[in-house]
């Protein structure tokens, strides 16, 4: 059984800790179970289930730390893992940045668990995929997709008396629908805590509409356009900027570094409509209430009305600089506005609607310039209406510059990054002067 209850995890960790001879010892126990189903060319291609339980022991003598992990749980094996960590610690050089472990902390209960998602069976996964295939068969499209539920827990205990436990459940689904002749392609991606919220039929219908409406795309000139990014496109673009690290900014190698030295903390960096925060208790995107350092997680604003409100600070860096430690983002919620995507289109004289972005890579760390392409439904807007589908573009744009050019924000929704599969709450975003630099023939 890979998902241990809080009590069982605590009992096991106590036993492991009793073997420790190190100055300090931190132990974590992680369990994961889940299943997936993959389909392509309108048929299931692979399906699988996995289950793992891993124990990790970090032992420290002075400032020398070693880590060992194992997946055997008889008493002799548990003790062997502790001894290995201690042996490795003796081999390791001193880590000047080692911080003493934290003592007992109080953590609020998280809301990340969901029984429905945890109990998803292979049959139910196949049924959900079946609903998706029903849509594409009716529309005479070719579907490829993936559905996965991941259920897990993490428990941490250390020799100073800290204990923390959290369990979570998530389900993700994505589908690509293509026309038989390969001239149209659509996509939809969803992520939820409760599988009851997942409507594979509805998501596939949207992908299908995108595929059919993106056929016979016309080429328009690359250049600067007003762009409406649907949440799945905006999420992937913005994911690349959600590291608000104080040390990196202080070191002068981040978009949060200040010319002449220091950071942009307290300065207006983005348009005043932009507010970005983390909140473990968000009902649509719950997260753990503690971080791996053993610090409690609270609602933290990173950007408020365009101003940099907080930077994450490690315990070591906080001590060095006389600051308060600030744990990094546990989840990301970007506030939005009231406009629907339809409203945004209606208010656009000339622009481009982007359904999805693809293969985004960082070009320059200082300006956070990113390059990537549009994919699976890109449309030209003129005088408040979608006029025709357009060929895909390559873009070169920085999310920091983009969030200075915000025209309007829609209602945030839970969306997943198409590369990391992490979930975020992101609104549709309308921006001016988004830089498309060339055309692509890809469909």
């Amino acid at each position, binding site marked *: 059984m890979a998902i241990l209850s809080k009590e069982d995890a605590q009992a096991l960790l106590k036993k492991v800790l009793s073997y420790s001879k190190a100055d300090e010892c931190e132990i974590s126990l992680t369990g994961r179970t889940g299943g997936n189903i993959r389909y392509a060319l309108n*048929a299931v291609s692979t399906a699988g289930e996995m289950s793992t339980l891993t124990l990790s022991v970090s032992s420290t003598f002075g400032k020398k730390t070693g880590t060992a992990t194992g997946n055997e749980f008889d008493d002799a094996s548990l003790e062997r893992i502790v001894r290995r960590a201690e042996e490795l610690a003796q081999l*390791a050089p001193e880590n000047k940045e080692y911080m003493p472990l934290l003592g007992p902390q109080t953590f609020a209960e998280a809301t990340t668990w969901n029984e429905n998602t945890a109990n998803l069976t292979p049959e139910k996964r196949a049924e959900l995929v079946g609903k998706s295939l029903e849509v594409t068969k009716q529309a005479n499209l*070719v579907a490829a997709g993936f559905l996965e539920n991941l259920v897990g827990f993490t428990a941490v205990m250390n020799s100073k008396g800290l204990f923390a436990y959290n369990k979570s459940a998530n389900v993700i689904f994505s589908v690509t629908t293509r026309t038989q002749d390969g001239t149209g392609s659509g996509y939809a991606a969803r992520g939820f805590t409760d599988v009851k919220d997942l409507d594979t039929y509805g998501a596939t219908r949207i992908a299908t509409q995108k595929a059919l409406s993106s056929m016979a795309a016309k080429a328009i000139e690359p250049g600067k356009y007003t762009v409406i990014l649907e949440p799945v496109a905006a999420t992937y673009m913005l994911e690349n900027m959600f590291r608000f690290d104080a040390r990196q900014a202080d070191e002068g190698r981040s978009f949060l570094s200040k010319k002449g030295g220091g950071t942009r903390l307290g300065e207006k960096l983005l348009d005043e409509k932009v507010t970005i925060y983390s909140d473990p208790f968000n009902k649509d995107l719950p997260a753990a209430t503690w971080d791996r350092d053993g610090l409690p997680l609270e609602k933290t604003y990173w950007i408020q009305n365009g101003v940099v409100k907080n930077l994450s600070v490690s315990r070591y860096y906080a001590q060095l600089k006389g600051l308060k430690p600030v744990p990094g983002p546990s989840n990301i919620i970007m506030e939005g506005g009231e406009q629907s995507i339809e409203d945004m289109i209606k208010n656009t004289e000339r622009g481009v609607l982007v359904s999805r972005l693809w293969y985004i890579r960082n070009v320059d760390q200082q300006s956070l310039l990113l*390059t990537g392409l549009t994919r699976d439904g890109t449309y030209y807007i003129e005088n408040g209406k979608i006029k025709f589908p357009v060929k895909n573009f*390559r873009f*070169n744009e920085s999310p920091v510059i983009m969030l200075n050019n915000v025209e309007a924000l829609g209602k945030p929704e839970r969306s997943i990054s198409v590369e990391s599969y992490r979930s975020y709450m992101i609104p549709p975003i309308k921006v001016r002067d988004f830089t498309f630099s060339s055309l*692509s023939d*890809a469909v």
Partner: protein
Amino acid sequence: MRRKDFLYLTGMGVGAAMLQKVPAFGRNIHPEEALSSVDVAVKKRMADVALNTARAKGATYADVRLSRHLNQSLTTREQRVQNLVNTETYGMGIRVIANGCWGFAATNELDDKSIAKATELAVLIAKGNSKLMKEPVILAPQKGYGDVSWKTPIEKNGFEIPIKEKIDLLLTVNAAASKAGASFVNSSLFIINEQKYFASTDGSYIDQDIHRIYPNFTVTKVNRDLGSSETRNALSAPMGMGYEYLTPDANSKMQGPLFPLYKNRYDMLEDVAFAAAQLDEKLKAKPVEPGKWDIIIDPSQLFLTIHESVGHPTELDRVLGYEANFAGTSFLTLDKWKSKKFNFGSKIVNFEGSKVLPNALGTVGYDDEGVKCGKWDLIKDGILVNYQTIRDQAHILGLNASQGCCYADNWNAVQFQRMPNVSLMPGKTPLKPADLIKNTEKGLYMFGRNSYSIDQQRYNFQFSSQLCYEIRNGKIVGMAKGAAYQANTQEFWNSCSAICDESDFRLGGSFSDGKGQPEQVSAVSHGCSTTKFDKVNVINTGRTLG
């Protein structure tokens, strides 16, 4: 591990300070424990338990991979070791065909009962999935090889080198960079050993010992007054070699037009000294003038363009649509191959797929479905002539044998089609990089991988480099800043006008190429000589924040 997380680990860059909490690859082990391997007779007996069970339960074919994956990673920053992790995973993956359909199951409990149980599950899954099958699997014929073995021909096993020696190397590299004026330096070393035992109902029992190594560094220099910073990564390559790759050897080094270029041995200390010195020049470099440039590309950058624009679109599973939802499809559709005249590149462009290229990451004796490895043409005299296949795809191309491109990144992952080493064949007449420079009126000369992006059908790409020099009238005149080349794959390879000879042929590689859902990583090399492309579109990526 997701591709991006792994890249984050290997690429280091700015976020390396966060590495301490990166989870390990699997079970951590004591360093000395990595040196023992399981007896072949024991592995054969375990494999036979699975094969016999599969036959008894009605499978018409079965293969077993009993594998042990060892990883060692060391990451450092300035004078400090950030992470030192040894991990191991060990287990068995069993793949069967029953009722004409594939089934797969895996176990890390390796007693006879657990192996038989996992095998039964694989057969059960095959039978269950056969109801959803469109047509039965057609496997290319494969003879059994009996008891055979293969080993990466290493001179020094990286796991046998004391940890202290490896830490000392990285910290010496860091000290050299700091001394030469770098503001920050991160360095790392990754060592991998896959001990793979394969057995199949065809009668093969294949024992393989596969080694890979990847040293890297990132040096950074910050100019706070200008609010700018520049980095330079190592010009090393991940290799299918042992620790000997890190022993400098004058015979394996070429004197390039600007600095030394490394072949099958790498001098990390020498490279980092050049890197730190080049940062000042990078900070002061003039922005590139956007427009058409002749570009000369060193293998340390061109390998990645080959990987993305030639390696991926010739994967047959992508061409057929099996990767449509994640990696994408391919513009190299079957009709283009059937026509026998699809003009992929200029006449001097020849690409070879190879699983036997010396020192390459993707080189093995046999693939993960027991096919003896070889090499074949993908692009011949500029024309698309072939793809990359595995046993259940060979018949689609009318082939009666697989090309041996099957791989799984772990025992618990099902094997599927992965890229072999794909290389650009060197020019046939003597030609050196210096000759290319001499013959260029207005050009850019690029080294080292940097930003990379390509669309899902592999038409439009954009690449940038670690170092970019401007050439005017046959001479290098200085560094250029912010240069990225943007092109269409077919146009780009048709603009290829000169390829240096074999003496310049070097390897670059991708240590963690991602594909599939759930994602699996593989390692693959690409060889080429310095190559020239005429009139390529170059953009200036320089932007500043307000």
